[in-house]
């Protein structure tokens, strides 16, 4: 098996790529349009969350607080547009909520960065503290400020408005597939490009990657490592805040206790799985959107006779599968490298020995 993979590794890779494209095409034509649409919609928090994760990690700081930052974003977004007594549909524009969420996420990212970089608090402990703190603080403030238990909802809270893309909107198939989503969905797509350009085409992005890969190299040429990391964590926090705002204002139009429920952690998995590449993270996030959409879709089908708990767990199953695949991929790559090495140089060594023997030296 491994011999086969060795000899035909190029062909295998091309084959896998073609198979992947075929699967995607097959999914596109075979799945119902509504399912595809909700996949794309539900992928949005993952897209933004995984960008947040990879940005921090590219700068050499493992950001395990994405979960908490998303939850904070979800909460402040709803608080911003919560205006009891105002007629339904007349409240503040939800996009304002998204902006405030990004600000708060960024702010929390900044505080996080300062605590870590200036006071040198252990990164993992700090992240866990942030996650716990936000989870409890949102519940607390919901009760104290609004007297709400578990859920903060009001008719004044509008959902994010949708956007029809010009030209594409009227195309068959492409129109319904790509047009008509809420603004934040497109914002997330734009952010994929922005983060990619930032990392790979700008001077500052070059410095981010240098800091992440060899901090001392960056320091010795005078790059301000602290500044780079503070910036990366702040931007990471903003992205996470937006992801949270989309969960509360884009999907549900209300805030529910602990509503992020692991999506922040999943985002970190996605970033790992995509080797911290923005475009790769985007497509991986789409798959997670599909898993989540599928679990909702199948639950709404009476003819599907699967236990509802299992269906609810679909995204989690996808996460675990992805983690196992990440590990396997790294292991397989290592094994493969060792095999090729042993074969190539073992062969050269044999040749060398035979050469020495035939030339009559001892």
């Amino acid at each position: 098996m491994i011999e086969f993979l060795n000899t035909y590794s190029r062909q295998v890779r091309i084959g896998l790529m073609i198979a992947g494209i075929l699967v995607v095409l097959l999914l596109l034509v075979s799945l119902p349009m509504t399912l595809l649409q909700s996949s794309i919609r539900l992928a949005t928090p993952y897209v933004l969350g995984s960008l947040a994760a990879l940005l921090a990690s590219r700068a050499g700081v493992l950001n395990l607080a994405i979960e908490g930052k998303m939850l904070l974003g979800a909460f402040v977004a709803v608080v911003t547009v919560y205006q009891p007594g105002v007629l339904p549909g007349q409240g503040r524009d939800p996009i304002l909520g998204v902006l405030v969420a990004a600000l708060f996420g960024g702010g929390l990212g900044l505080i996080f960065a300062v605590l870590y970089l200036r006071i040198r608090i252990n990164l993992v402990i700090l992240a866990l503290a942030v996650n716990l703190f936000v989870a409890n603080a949102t519940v607390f403030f919901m009760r104290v400020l609004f007297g709400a238990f578990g859920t903060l909802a009001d008719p004044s809270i509008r959902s994010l408005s949708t956007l029809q893309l010009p030209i594409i909107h009227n195309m068959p198939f492409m129109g319904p597939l790509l047009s008509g989503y809420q603004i934040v969905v497109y914002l997330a797509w734009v952010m994929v490009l922005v983060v990619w350009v930032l990392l790979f085409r700008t001077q500052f992005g070059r410095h981010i990657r240098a800091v992440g890969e060899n901090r001392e190299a960056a320091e010795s040429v005078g790059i301000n490592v602290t500044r780079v990391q503070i910036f990366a964590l702040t931007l990471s926090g903003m992205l996470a805040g937006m992801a949270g705002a989309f969960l509360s204002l884009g999907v549900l139009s209300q805030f529910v206790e602990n509503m992020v429920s692991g999506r922040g952690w999943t985002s970190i998995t996605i970033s790992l799985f995509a080797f911290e590449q923005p475009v790769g993270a985007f497509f991986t996030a789409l798959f997670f959107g599909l898993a989540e959409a599928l679990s909702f879709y199948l639950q709404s089908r009476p003819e599907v006779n699967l236990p509802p708990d299992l269906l609810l767990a679909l995204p989690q199953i996808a996460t675990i599968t992805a983690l196992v695949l990440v590990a396997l991929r790294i292991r397989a790559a290592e094994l493969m490298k060792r095999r090729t090495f042993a074969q190539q140089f073992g062969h050269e060594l044999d040749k060398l020995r035979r050469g020495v023997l035939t030339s009559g030296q001892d």
Partner: protein
Amino acid sequence: MPLAVDMRHIRKFFPSSSVLACDDVDFAVEQGEVHALVGENGAGKTTLMNILYGLVAPDAGQIFVHEKLSHIAHPNDAIKLGIGMVHQHFKLVPSFTIAQNILLGIEPNQAGFINNNDEADIVRRLSESFGLPVNPNARVADVSVGMQQRVEILKTLQRNAQILILDEPTAVLTPQEVRELYTVIRKLADDGRTVILITHKLLEVKEAADRVSIMRRGRMVATHSVADVTVREMANLMVGREVILRVDKSPATPGDVVLKADNLLVAGAGGMPAVFGVSLEVRAGEILGIAGVSGNGQTELVEAITGLRPVEGGTISLLGQDITHASVRKRREIGLAHVPEDRMEVGLNLKTNLDENVVVTHYQDDPYSKRGILRLPPIRKLAQQIVDAFQVKSARVGEEIKTLSGGNLQKVVLGRELYGNPRLLVVNQPTRGLDVGSIEFVHRTLIEERDSGAAILLVSVELDEILSLSDRIAVMFRGRIMDVLDAEAANEQDIGVLMAGGSLETEPAAAQKV
């Protein structure tokens, strides 16, 4: 000549290791000269230069650059003053190209956006103007160590460095590459640049430098014109007394083969073979020394034998048992002991106390634990025995070891590894960074161990050490053993030729080919 650098009364104390690395040091360098800064490992050379480069803040002292009092708080300040430093451990980003590394931090850009082609052009022009060819688009991870060093030098030149600090630049180079480096250094000095060359190889000082300053244990002990001082005198100043290079020892009486390696193939960093077809035997009661320039596969060979690195081809056997893929534990049970190159990170755990450090190789054995529970009294007794037998000064049972000096730490490692009479002792750079007294102690211990019947594989980049301890000497070059010599018949010249990749029969031709 005006002074390019004038450091006065520099003092630096490291609380974390309780070391006074610079003790009221004065150091002056004239413009346009090649100035060697020599001293044993740990003398404070790197610290002094890190202070000049703004990486370490001194506790006291003043620095004048081009005769102006300068405040250097950050490498940026140093770069602005025209100071460039090539560090002992290169500071490069492996996944970046050569051009990206050279221009790191000073990327030409338009409103923050960068263009790879512009960068390659700039680096090409730079490398041509200094006669230091590089391929700007090669990834640093894929090029040789010599090339990486060239990248570091170009990095400082691109920043228009007038004062260049090179920290032990030759430790990782082949003799050929060393000669090329000297040509470059001389050319830079002829152009009016000032070069500070840190090294502890005194022959190189004679060859490459104009003046030399000598440091010993944090103090500056002398500055001389190179022409006025002999290698012997420099050596004495460096260690503070007559250097004894010969160790008393009787001829070896080798017994059975203990370690046998056959046609070993081991991978190094970057996917290239680090050990390429090495076969060797070590017998009971003899010391096989492995000589070679650092980075020629010695470390990987040691790691393969001790079980810290996988073997990709060939076999290793210990006392007749195949251990090619055996676990470290298995190897130790058969009779292996290992004094690793890096005693701070690998040899010891500086975060814990003496007891745990000495029992870590035996904690599962009888009196030290019963049914999975550690038993303190026997462990303490063991620690005390080692402290007494190896004269580990200022070490106390149950207490932290991180404040011990390098020599005492090495004694702890030796004491632990020699406990239980190992059949094979693998030692890598056993005296690196130690004071003379500790060096003598380590050498004597190794000879005693040999005389009591252990097989010893000694790896060292210090040729003197190899020559004075070994019974047979294998010379490694680019992952291969060039030849094995009898220590009685070996001399420094022959080994030098082999270390450079030459062979003793066809010496001139082969030496040139490399």
